[in-house]
């Protein structure tokens, strides 16, 4: 199928995955209401299953997008490999997040349709964020995602911490939105369009070089997006929110919001705003540095695993920013790969935390993990895989991801970033290892309550996550090819298998649009 946007219907096809998710969301909400009636009973199990089914359907639709052909792109939403790839990551994160949360919803008595609805709506926002080629869409997508997640954060109204987390997140998020919006306005003021392709061509024309409006706009845009991916110093909300939010939601947030945020950053900053690199490179470089160093240090002092994972998630934003800072297609594909791996491992880690934390999410201190490895060998083993992957240890996907990011940094000559990346990883080893030592080297306290048995959905999701991480670590070939193609910004049909990464600098991407690769040499 050829999408040339000559007909309005083409927009429908181009947005098919998002539409599938949206429709599912609405269906979930409506059917849930009808099914529950006015009683306050939990939703039927099929409601959750329906949500998952919708995500899977969207994934199929997303896969179908690979078959379409887009001759030219001058539109608000991108139809390219990059979007398809980010959509897969986000849909995968959503599906895993949903599967992981079933047990928790039952435990906390929160199995309600709104939960699924909000997750799905956030998912729609994230997907749009990954595909936006227009600043208006960007704003709307960010808000759709954010507002849904604000509510999800506070969904456990009986929990004081949940409410507090929601309020903090909300206030900070709205505040950041203001900056994001102001940035959009300034960019518009500088180049006269919100369409990113036009912005790019304006910048390429060189008329805007040195324009303070453009610089301020780009800077504020980065600030707004930096907030979403919790880059230091815009990260301060993250530990509190992650700690207070219901754990499965934390996982979903950490994985999905970050993935979406980075998808937007990668597309906007390294592709569309590539010509403005002198404007943003320094900022991103410093953000990357700080975001690697600060959270890794603070995490050392954490004795709450959930909060520690929150810092770890900030740190991962730092690693991802290295890929952004490299500014090359290699950096892009590295970041994309890492995002996928990161989403899986962080979701898995938070899922294990909620199992251990028990009812009320109260037992997530390090001490609560003592003896876990011997009490629940399989769960423990899964957690070890997640932690090792987070630490970037072979043979997990986390290692390949870090290697990829390192390659990007080295190829771009960013040795300082590369070295910081490995040294901060080293620091992170300590706190990941500490969890493992609690799990295996120390005995559980006598009053440790029995852990709930995990449901089939949870087990299935865990197995999928573990297998995916190991596969990404041992046989990453296919995934690497996918992301490197995606990072070229190739339209799916015209995709050519790139002979090797790194050569992209020599081979201009065969798209009609100006996609000046960020070649730093």
């Amino acid at each position: 199928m050829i999408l040339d946007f000559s007909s309005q219907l083409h927009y429908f096809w181009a947005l098919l995955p998002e539409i599938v998710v949206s429709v599912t969301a609405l269906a979930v909400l409506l059917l849930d209401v009808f099914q529950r009636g006015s009683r306050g009973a939990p939703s039927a199990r099929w409601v959750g299953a329906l949500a998952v089914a919708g995500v899977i359907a969207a994934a199929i639709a997303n896969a179908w997008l690979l078959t379409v052909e887009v001759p030219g792109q001058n539109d608000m939403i991108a139809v390219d490999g990059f979007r398809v790839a980010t959509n897969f990551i986000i849909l995968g994160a959503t599906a895993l997040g949903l599967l992981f949360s079933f047990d928790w919803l039952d435990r906390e008595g929160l199995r309600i349709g709104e939960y699924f609805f909000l997750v799905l709506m956030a998912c729609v926002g994230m997907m749009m964020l990954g595909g936006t080629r227009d600043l208006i869409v960007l704003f709307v997508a960010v808000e759709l995602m954010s507002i849904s997640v604000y509510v999800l954060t506070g969904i456990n109204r009986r929990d004081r911490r949940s409410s507090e987390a929601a309020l903090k997140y909300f206030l900070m998020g709205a505040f950041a939105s203001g900056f994001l919006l102001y940035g959009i306005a300034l960019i518009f003021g500088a180049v006269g369009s919100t369409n990113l392709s036009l912005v790019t061509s304006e910048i390429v024309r060189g008329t805007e070089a040195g324009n303070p409006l453009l610089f301020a706009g780009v800077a504020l845009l980065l600030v707004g997006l930096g907030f979403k991916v919790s880059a230091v110093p815009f990260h301060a909300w993250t530990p509190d929110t992650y700690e207070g939010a219901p754990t499965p939601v934390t996982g979903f947030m950490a994985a999905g919001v970050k993935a979406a945020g980075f998808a937007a950053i990668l597309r906007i900053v390294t592709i569309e705003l590539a010509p403005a690199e002198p404007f943003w490179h320094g900022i991103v470089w410093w953000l990357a540095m700080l975001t690697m160093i600060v959270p890794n240090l603070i995490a050392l002092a954490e004795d709450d695993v959930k909060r520690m994972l929150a810092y770890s998630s900030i740190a991962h934003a730092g690693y991802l920013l290295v890929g952004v800072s490299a500014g090359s297609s290699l950096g892009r594909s590295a970041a994309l790969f890492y995002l996928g791996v990161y989403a899986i491992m962080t979701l898995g880690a938070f899922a294990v935390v909620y199992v251990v934390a028990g009812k009320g999410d109260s037992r997530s201190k390090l001490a609560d993990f003592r003896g876990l490895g011997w009490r629940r060998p399989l769960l423990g083993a899964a957690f070890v895989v997640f932690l090792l992957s987070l630490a970037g240890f072979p043979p997990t996907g986390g290692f390949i991801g870090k290697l990829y990011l390192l390659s990007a940094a080295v190829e771009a000559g960013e040795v300082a970033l590369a070295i910081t990346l490995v040294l901060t990883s080293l620091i992170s080893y300590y706190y990941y290892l500490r969890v493992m030592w609690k799990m295996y080297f120390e005995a559980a306290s006598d009053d440790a309550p029995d852990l709930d048995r995990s449901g089939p959905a949870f087990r299935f999701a865990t197995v999928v996550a573990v297998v995916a991480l190991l596969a990404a670590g041992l046989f990453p070939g296919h995934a690497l090819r996918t992301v490197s193609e995606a990072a070229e910004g190739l339209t799916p049909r015209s995709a050519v298998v790139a002979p090797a990464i790194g050569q992209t600098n020599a081979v201009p991407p065969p798209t009609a649009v100006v996609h000046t690769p960020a070649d730093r040499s």
Partner: protein
Amino acid sequence: MNLDIENAALILSAFLFAVGTAGVLVRRNAIIVFMCVELMLNAVNLTLVVFSRSLGLEAQVLVFFVMAVAAAEAAVGLAIIIAIFRHYEGVDVDRFNLLRW
């Protein structure tokens, strides 16, 4: 740069934005903080409207989106504030520090 009407309006909106930011920073009441955020958003709206005079109508489209989003935010935000009010019997943001360190 001449101080024509556009620039004056831009400066005004920047000033408003700054006032909103300052309000967010100095006020402690959650509702007022949120109102300050709204002020920031509206300052941006003003900016966009000014730009639209010379640069096209896209900006005004954006303004409408912003207004819609702000409304949604307000709804959600107030709900969250109510929820937390039930826990804390107050809306002073500095009191909400169960989550720290």
